[in-house]
């Protein structure tokens, strides 16, 4: 299998802080990868670098074998590399339906500029309705999203990213801010929608139970470096991961 997303020596420094330290990551087409790490490990920085929100200090980002280093989020999105946000980035004064329609409208306007056929021969309105159904957002269709619960906004944020049929979707902590008993239901929904489209996924997650349940491979970051990469069982058993990410070692030593 070929890598749809690859970084080579990806580095980003903010003054004395190295948020990404020579990262070599390859994400196989069609895989679902979990990205874990403590606060400040560089997980969101990685997403920001890959999607062009931040310019790397050095290193390259390859998408489908093509160098996309330094391209703006707009161009990266058009190539089929989309993301969702840790804090939902939605359009507060619009309804859930209108929120979906904004992105789909952009696709409809620039069919040629987008890679792949996100809409096929369907209208943006039809696809928006379908996404509302798939993400069970129907009840909120005509409500302004400013007043919706955080879990719903989170779902909408992911739905907006998925609506334009990306080839790879980067989910930044899809379950943060969602109550513990809603997490699995939310992820089941999201993953079912994603698998139906055959989209490659890399998602950042703090909750190890969520990670274990959904991914085939885990990347563990610590201080901008990869400390473990592989099957979930092996990574979560890794000594450094237990010490720095999961925190179990610290508990055993009585530090907490």
């Amino acid at each position, binding site marked *: 299998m070929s890598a749809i997303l690859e970084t080579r020596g990806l580095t980003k420094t903010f003054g004395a802080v190295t948020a990404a330290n020579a990262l070599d990551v390859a994400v196989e087409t069609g895989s679902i990868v979990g990205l874990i790490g403590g606060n400040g490990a560089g997980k969101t920085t990685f997403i920001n670098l890959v*999607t062009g929100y931040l310019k790397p200090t050095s290193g390259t980002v390859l998408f489908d074998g093509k160098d996309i280093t330094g391209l*703006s*989020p*707009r161009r990266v*999105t*058009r190539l089929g590399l*989309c*993301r969702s*946000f840790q804090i939902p*980035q*939605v*359009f*507060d*004064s*619009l309804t859930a339906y*209108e929120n979906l*329609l*904004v*992105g789909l*409208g*952009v*696709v*409809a*306007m*620039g069919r040629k*500029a*987008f890679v792949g056929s996100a809409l096929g021969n369907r209208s*943006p309105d039809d696809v928006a309705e379908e996404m509302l159904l798939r993400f069970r957002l129907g009840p909120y269709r005509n409500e302004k999203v400013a007043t919706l619960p955080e879990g719903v906004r989170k779902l909408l944020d992911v739905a*907006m*990213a998925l609506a*334009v049929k990306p080839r790879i979707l980067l989910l930044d902590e899809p379950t943060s801010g969602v109550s513990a008993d809603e997490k699995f239901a939310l992820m089941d929904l999201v993953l079912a929608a994603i698998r139906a489209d055959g989209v490659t996924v890399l998602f950042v997650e703090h909750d190890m139970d969520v990670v274990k349940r959904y991914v085939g491979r885990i990347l563990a970051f610590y201080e901008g470096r990869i400390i473990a990469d592989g099957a979930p069982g092996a990574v979560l058993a890794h000594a450094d991961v237990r010490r720095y990410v999961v925190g179990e070692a610290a508990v055993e030593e009585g530090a907490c």
Partner: protein
Amino acid sequence: MSPSRRTALGLGAALVAVALVGPLLPKWAAYLFTIAIAKALVALGLLLLMRTGLVSFGQGLYFGIGAYAAGVGADALKLGDAVPMVLLGAAAAGLVAAVLGLLLARYRTIFFAMLSLAFSMILYGLLVKTSALGSTDGFNVSARSTFGLAASGSLGRFGTYGLAALTAFAAATGLDRYLRTHLGRLAPAVRDNELRVEYMGASVRNVIHLHLVLAAVLAGAGGALTALAVGHVDPEMAYWTTSGEFVFVAILSGTASVAAPFLGALVLELLRSFAYEHAPNTWQLVVGGAMLAVILFLPDGLWSVFRRKGVVA
């Protein structure tokens, strides 16, 4: 019936009513209506900008350019008819915005407002110093005909009035339709969350640039119509108080409907005329008091009166 069709029908009915009532109006009322429509066109452009999240304190720039271009064009290009004069005014304003937009589209909030104001004051300064354009006195502007109807004829007397009404109808229905397109729907999206718009694959700067040009075209048309109605242009048209008045109209009207600026501008013109007649020394107090009342009781503008009654425009 779709909302856009309902708006178009409402505006069409308003156009017919305005056209029918025109010849019956006393001259002062026809003039007042024309001026109100011309100012409403500028406020309509502000409505578009406000929906995109921007407030321009410099629309006097495009208003002034539209007026002067119509006047200069009439002389230099031997334009005798009002229609090409208005088109020329609108085009000239749009062209200037297309150039200035390269810079303006990079700014937001107060920085955008102040930069737009600065550009308008540069034009004011230039006009005041240019003796060929009459310096502070400006110069007279007149059209020999409107749609080929001689200005001296019985119908031609209402030429500018009719042209203003038609322009307003075209502008309002056009903008309403635009706001319902995929591109137009990006306006509130840009206002709410620029980051997400970029992450949806659209260019925020291009959207803002386009809206700056559209707003300028409307302001230019308004300026040209004002020049024709008044029969005169002067640098005051580009002065910051003129720009401020357009913002005043836009806030008074509210941004809920493309028809709102016309109501707001008409109310302001009527209020000012009557206040000036009955309280010549304190008319500003009356107008200011009215604005205060609107802000306090109708924070979404005059148009929200219709909303509260459940009549959706």
